[in-house]
């Protein structure tokens, strides 16, 4: 991530597809792992860990959506609904069968993948904004179904209490324990995605995105790969839903409504379509921005406004700032934070001899 190679020396496909293009990449990855897995839980307070927890959950969901929207070019605004599918699958397994998390997480993912593949069928005939409406319909249908079928929702309140996950007999209760639990899955998701996009399937996705007729001509079965993209993306969404359920201790469809789908779409667009780092940056940005703007207003708002007015101004100004900053970053770099980061890197790659 921080390495600066002096040129392109790759001579084989294997070198081009390598997970670590340079030895230093490996060290950088290890350093990040050390920082976030060892140092962060030891040094940060519970509150900051809880923010990181929310970011980790968002990272998994954003990665999944980026596979579909960024890599395969199929737009979806039903991501929130796929999360609820995972959440309720897991919650029902826990409540009725007392299933442990290593069963419920894949099960939730697989159920979401199944439903996602079904929802993906219209993508074979329609594209772009039309597909967006089809996935919107899926979002509404899934919401309605959960809301009205007690067998899924567990009663009229449509919420199922789920005990926290346990590992080797200890229940993961504190924010730090949950942080390590969520971190494991976030790392798994990052590694899986970076392997996926380097593989044959990932390259087929990119071919479909760039021009699906051309992809078909060179022998890619677009039918299969579009459905794969929907299924894989929904699998991630399902896992996100299960993680969320464990984190909060409850499955509730009101936590996965249309605005959540929009939030995740915002994450991948702001972060950068078709990039793993972009998904992570987008998840951090969208989760942290409201917190940071509020902190900023609380710290400096008192200089301009009276304390009583401040209570009224902060929430409203926060929304305005949130929207304004999204517009600002997209104007500065329409291809997202990932591109912004690469521009900075490219600048320093040849610095100070840029000519």
């Amino acid at each position, binding site marked *: 991530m921080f390495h600066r190679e002096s040129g392109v020396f790759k001579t084989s496909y294997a070198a081009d597809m390598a997970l670590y293009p340079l030895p230093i990449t490996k060290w950088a990855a290890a350093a990040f792992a050390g920082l976030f897995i060892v140092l962060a839980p030891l040094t940060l307070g519970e509150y900051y860990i809880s923010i990181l927890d929310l970011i980790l959950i968002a990272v998994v969901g954003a990665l999944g959506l980026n596979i579909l929207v960024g890599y395969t070019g199929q737009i979806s605004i039903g991501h929130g609904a796929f999360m609820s599918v995972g959440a309720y699958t897991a919650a029902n397994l826990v409540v009725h069968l007392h299933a442990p998390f290593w069963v419920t997480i894949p099960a939730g993912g697989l159920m979401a993948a199944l439903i996602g593949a079904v929802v993906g069928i219209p993508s074979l005939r329609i594209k772009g904004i039309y597909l967006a409406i089809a996935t919107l319909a899926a979002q509404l249908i899934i919401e309605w179904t959960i809301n009205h079928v007690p067998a899924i929702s567990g009663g009229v309140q449509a919420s199922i209490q789920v005990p926290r996950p346990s590992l080797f007999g200890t229940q993961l209760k504190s924010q730090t324990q949950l942080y390590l639990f969520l971190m494991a899955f976030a790392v798994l998701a990052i590694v899986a995605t970076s392997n996926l996009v380097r593989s044959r399937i990932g390259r087929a996705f990119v071919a479909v995105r760039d021009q699906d007729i051309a992809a078909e001509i060179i022998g890619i079965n677009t039918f299969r790969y579009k459905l794969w993209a929907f299924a894989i993306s929904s699998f991630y969404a399902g896992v996100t839903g299960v993680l969320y359920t464990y984190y909060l201790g409850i499955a509730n469809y009101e936590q996965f409504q249309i605005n959540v789908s929009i939030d995740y779409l915002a994450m991948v667009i702001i972060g950068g379509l078709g990039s793993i780092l972009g998904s992570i940056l987008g998840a951090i940005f969208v989760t942290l921005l409201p917190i940071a703007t509020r*902190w900023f207003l609380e710290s400096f708002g008192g200089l301009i406004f009276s304390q009583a007015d401040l209570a009224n101004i902060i929430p409203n100004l926060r929304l305005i700032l949130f929207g304004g900053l999204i517009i600002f970053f997209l104007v500065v770099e329409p291809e997202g934070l990932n591109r912004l980061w690469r521009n900075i890197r490219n600048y320093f790659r040849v610095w100070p001899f840029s000519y």
Partner: protein
Amino acid sequence: MRSASTAVLVAVGLCFAGAATAQEKEVLIAWQCDRTGPTQIVGVVYCPAIQDYIDLINSKGGVEGYKIKSSELDNEYKVPQAVEEYERQKQMGAVSMMIYGTPQAQALNQKLVEDKIPGTSPGFGISASADGTRFPYLFPIAATYWSQAAGAIQFIKEKLGGSLKGKKIAYVYYDNPAGHEPLPVLEDLQKIEGFEMRSFAVPPPGVEMGAQVLDIAQRYRPDFVINHLFGRSPSVAVKEYKRAGYPLSKVIGLVWASAEADILAAGGWAVAEGYHTLQFAGAGDDYPIRQEIKAMYKAQGKEPPKGMDDTVIYNRAILNTALHVEAIRNAIKATGGRKPTGEDVKKGFEQIHDFTLGGLFPPLKITPEDHEGGGWVQIFQVKGGKFVKETDWFRGYPEVVAAAVKKAE
């Protein structure tokens, strides 16, 4: 980039640490309250009212020698935000919390138990949380949706001459979990009282219900209608009943369909004349505590805030805050002047008994088993430009509600 964000986090942390150092004789009440988002129509009145009451208590010297500190955060009715804010308020040292929103109450319930901080959800949240043994740190402290529905049926029964046999009741509800929640109790009551009931769902956001109202007024023609709606939809409903010619004196609104703002948005008091509203805190201006708050503003040389005119929502905020303050008072008394913990305040809540603040609240009796305090409601009718009290505080079918709470296990 990740390390950069950590640096920001650490910097933010240092700033918070400065703000969080609490002084000796202070207790922190934390609340979440939405001045933005889908429920802002309630929040813009509700949130400042909480602060007003705390200011009043502090201006009178606080509680048992302790000043009340406050923390208000807006979660935009989003659950992740609510969780983050909860963690922050916990870190600030909150000993009691006011929750805002039903999904938020469900998401925070488990955390409240783990952190031993009592949280209140008056008039919303989980009906089954009336059971203090199963939900030790969640306090509805006012009539839950189940008690509200039972209260409405009791009122309708009296209105229709003491018997509901063969009568028709329409239940109009917002199609979300909170809207569905009263259904089991209504079905139980249907069996007991032998009335006929049909439910009419209003899909969110609830601003279009011409078809449902026409169906009710022209085809079903019920003897009474129960409105269980939120946000903008209550005002739309009132308008539509008027247009369809269904008498509003045969409509009762549950607690979130019964504020001044709803009446005004429907076209004013004349339009809604006759509409019955169910309340868990008194409506109107005739309560001594409201005069005290006005006097406090006058003493500062300021006009009382406009929000006070929305008496229904304002008074509910007073109920919520006053019970928190009272619980803290009980807790400090019990600990002999030591700064109370969340656990002490929980016990303080469970000692609240007959604290009515001049009739603004019902004669609540909160116990370790009953966190609802009895499920009292009161009916007010729109008459001549204001809410007029129709009944005294009463409990509708407490045994049926208790059975439902027990069954929810």
